[in-house]
């Protein structure tokens, strides 16, 4: 416990606000009837997750979260919603009597089980750190220990771009033949 009107107390208050942002965004993302609102909830949730990364002493990963998820993935999903959402008003959630309560129960059970597991395990703190985890150390590890994976992920991204172009172009004819 720390006093509220101090630097640590205010930082705890902001932390609670960030956690609430994350959970609220996740609930909007799964529960809204319209898909465009779900994407907005996803963006709110990712802003909260970036705040959590900041509290975990990784401002670079927080910045990447904002840049990639909020800036790129959410905008791409918004474009897909604009291109392929035939039923913009409602009808997005399953209406079956089983899937609603069943999926809710499954989600609650997963959450409860994972939380209980995390609470019961005796986590062992490390005896020491080999570096301080700064951005400089991340870059050095990325270009020495993990250079193979770093090169491979660029290949994966290139293939994803080409594959997305091929898939999205297929079936389209020249000069407005379709329509």
């Amino acid at each position: 416990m720390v006093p509220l009107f101090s630097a640590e107390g205010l930082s705890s208050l902001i932390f609670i606000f960030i956690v609430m942002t994350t959970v609220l965004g996740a609930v909007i993302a799964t529960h809204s009837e319209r898909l465009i609102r779900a994407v907005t909830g996803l963006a709110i949730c990712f802003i909260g997750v970036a705040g959590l990364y900041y509290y975990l002493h990784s401002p670079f990963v927080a910045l990447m979260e904002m840049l990639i998820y909020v800036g790129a993935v959410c905008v791409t999903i918004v474009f897909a919603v604009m291109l392929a959402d035939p039923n913009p008003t409602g009808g997005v959630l399953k209406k079956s009597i089983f899937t609603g309560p069943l999926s809710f129960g499954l989600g609650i059970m997963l959450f409860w089980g994972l939380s209980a597991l995390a609470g019961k395990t005796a986590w062992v703190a490390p005896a020491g750190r080999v570096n301080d985890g700064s951005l400089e150390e991340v870059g050095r590890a990325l270009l020495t220990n993990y250079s193979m994976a770093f090169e491979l992920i660029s290949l994966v991204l290139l293939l994803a771009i080409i594959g997305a172009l091929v898939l999205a172009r297929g079936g389209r004819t020249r000069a407005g033949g379709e329509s």
Partner: protein
Amino acid sequence: MSIPAFGDSLITYLIIAALLFGIGFYGLVHRRTLIGMLIAGELILAGASINFMAFNRFLAPDPTVGQIFTLFIMGIAAAEAAIALSIIIAVYRNYRTIDTDDVAELKG
């Protein structure tokens, strides 16, 4: 007045990650359109990333490993979103719907 310092304990982050995973799983089962399921999948990936970052901050002897793994998760998730969305657009062009109950041509 005093307030607990939540941001400095591992269990807080693990519970948040478990909550995101549970919400994402619920959405994955509950949603009826392909884009909704993709959004729920992104929530599950976010929960996994928070777990990696929390273990990296509190338990790892080398605190760069979790950050690099999270960066790789982001790259893979971006590639996956691009491919999945182009598949969804191709499905929409053929079927005029992205409802998972209607796209059932392979169903026996």
